[in-house]
């Protein structure tokens, strides 16, 4: 028998492995969803021929990506070039650890869950920066520069809006924050403080490089931005981590603002997934509707609108909380 002292460790390891599978599966589902939604928005069927309604298409894509030759540009920095995709992907798994998918379904019960997630999600930008720099490509370099400026800028309103919720609940423990909100929508922080939710939502678009803020890989300007030189699974890793990041930020959003795994009827992990996927659907839907913003506009939105608004919101929340006792 295992010493009961090690239970949390065993739990963590099992959860990490499970999350690996979850991230992979999620990527498949999201790729399928993305292409299907794009297709139907544009009045075409999307993937259709591989499997029933194209269900096996993401698998085929994954197979293709893995089978492709990995090319290393001769003038690149070999070590950093291949370290970047790994660095981009690995921390993402850690981000899932403190997330409570259900009442007892979590990997690590820490009282600083929010901080852990925010800290490790900051690593992603380092990977993008390295990828752009190490590939020794001008487009890659420009993309990397954009990625750094964008991520750093959008982290600020993101943090402030998370801080607002933390103040409202008085805790940084994701589990505690979930429980404090009730099962009904009017008890959720997203409804009680819609401005914080709005700011958080815009910021995660910037953080995860999703359209209309997908500037680091802005196709029409920088061909493919930081991952221009990556082929096969090198690109696949960035791809996976982008989707995994999207899932993480949407998980956090549904915990902080939408009551997590609680729902009006039968609380459980299904409510949690439903909320996460609803948010993901909106993000995908936005991508297929809007043009891309320009880089200076992107920063202007952040510094002139989101950050001041988030600060005002924080102050307002503090005053209201104080007055309400």
């Amino acid at each position, binding site marked *: 028998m295992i010493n009961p002292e090690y239970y949390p460790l065993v739990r963590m390891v099992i959860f990490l492995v499970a999350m690996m599978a979850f991230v992979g599966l999620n990527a498949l589902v999201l790729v399928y969803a993305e292409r299907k939604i794009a297709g139907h928005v544009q009045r075409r069927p999307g993937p259709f021929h591989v499997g029933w309604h194209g269900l096996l298409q993401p698998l085929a894509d994954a197979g293709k990506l893995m089978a492709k030759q990995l090319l290393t540009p001769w003038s690149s920095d070999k070590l950093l070039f291949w370290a970047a995709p790994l660095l981009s992907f690995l921390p993402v798994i850690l981000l899932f650890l403190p997330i409570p998918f259900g009442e007892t379904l979590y990997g690590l019960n820490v009282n600083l869950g929010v901080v852990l997630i925010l800290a490790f999600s900051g690593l992603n930008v380092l990977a993008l920066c390295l990828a752009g720099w190490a590939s020794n490509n001008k487009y890659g370099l420009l993309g990397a520069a954009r990625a750094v400026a964008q991520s750093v800028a959008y982290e600020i309103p993101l943090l402030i809006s998370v801080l607002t919720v933390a103040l409202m609940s008085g805790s940084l423990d994701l589990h505690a924050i979930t429980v404090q909100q009730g099962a009904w929508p009017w008890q959720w922080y997203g409804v009680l403080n819609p401005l914080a939710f709005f700011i958080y939502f815009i910021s995660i678009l910037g953080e995860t490089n999703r359209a209309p803020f997908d500037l680091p890989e802005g196709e029409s300007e920088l061909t493919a931005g930081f991952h221009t030189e990556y082929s096969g699974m090198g690109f696949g890793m960035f791809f996976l981590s982008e989707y995994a990041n999207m899932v993480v930020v949407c998980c956090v959003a549904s915990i902080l603002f939408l009551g997590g795994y609680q729902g009006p009827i039968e609380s459980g992990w299904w409510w949690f997934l439903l909320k996460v996927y609803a948010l993901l659907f909106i993000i995908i839907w936005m991508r297929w509707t*809007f*043009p891309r*913003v320009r880089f200076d506009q992107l920063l202007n939105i952040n510094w002139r609108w989101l950050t001041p608004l988030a600060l005002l919101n924080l102050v307002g929340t503090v005053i209201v909380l104080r007055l309400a006792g």
Partner: protein
Amino acid sequence: MTMSPQLSSDPSDFYSQSFSKGARENTLILNMGPQHPSTHGVLRVIVELDGEYIVRAEPVLGYIHRMHEFMGQKKTYTQYLPNMGRVDYLHATAWNWAYVGAVEQLAGIEVPERAEYIRVLTCEINRICSHLVWWGAYLLDLGAFTPILYAFEDREFLLDILQRVTGSRLTYCYFRFGGVYADVDDKFIDDTRTFIQRFRKRLKMYEALVTKNFILRKRCEDIGVLSVQTARKYGCTGPVIRGSGVPYDVRRAVPYSVYPELDFEIPTFSEGDAMARYMVRLKEMEQSLRIMEQVMDRMPDGDIQGKTPKTLKPPKGETYFAVEGARGKIGVHLVSDGSATPYRVKLRAPGYSNLSCFAELSKGTLIADAVSILGSLDLVIPEIDR
């Protein structure tokens, strides 16, 4: 880690070498194209970047040069006809018309009235096709993926309509000296009328989805402001100069065919920015619909082919004929030495003149703006290189 010299400057070909001679210190020389998502085909633009700001830009042409003008000197007048659909594949009928019109002028061939009306009709349908492709591709440049598929959905109707008479869907070779290849039938007219009804509704949707979109307006307004003087200097025509406030349209300025009898406006915007050029094209589509309606109402019966000599040998002399294409003034200068082949064919492509102002417009803008400007000029690269 040290940057390998390739990144700083290692120009490999002549253009990069000569361009980098004038470069300032601490700038990056970047080749956009010939293979680049936003240069639509094989245009190459060398830019000198300071951060993301463009210090200098220079378009490099010639990657799709096919010697159309020289082919004109080697083929007979009729044999040269199919070349015209290939110069500008998006508005092929206008090029057809420019060449056919020049030959008719030179050889004194009469065109029956019905043929003239059919020409106007197909040309305007083709103009909408061209503007739809531009609209979709421009938004693709700006990062919106969906509009191009909506545009192609509408364009598909028009291509089906045009296929009824021309038999092809893109590189039309439909106009003949003294007329057109085939007559239009009732189904053609009915389909066109149905399309006009449908497209008026779709234009409203386009406006709500794209034109009023906040992000798009921010990407287009005050970007690439082209003054009237600059536009004149470079010989810009078409929507580019009409976006700068000059109501120059060959259909009104040098009227040809039955255009003088038709009632339509020339949309003009005075701002001179990318948004103005965008608006001009959207309004032009509405005007084209108006022209199409009038033409279908007035179309007379009769022949579609005038009398032409069996072997065409225009008398010695030269002529110039211009029509208004989707991108501007399309001109054909023909010189005949009395034989069956032209002595010289000079094609004036509007895209060439419109592109030449790009170097001036893009100075000091962001790289994303340069893409927006390039898109707003509506370039068809095969036309520029000819």
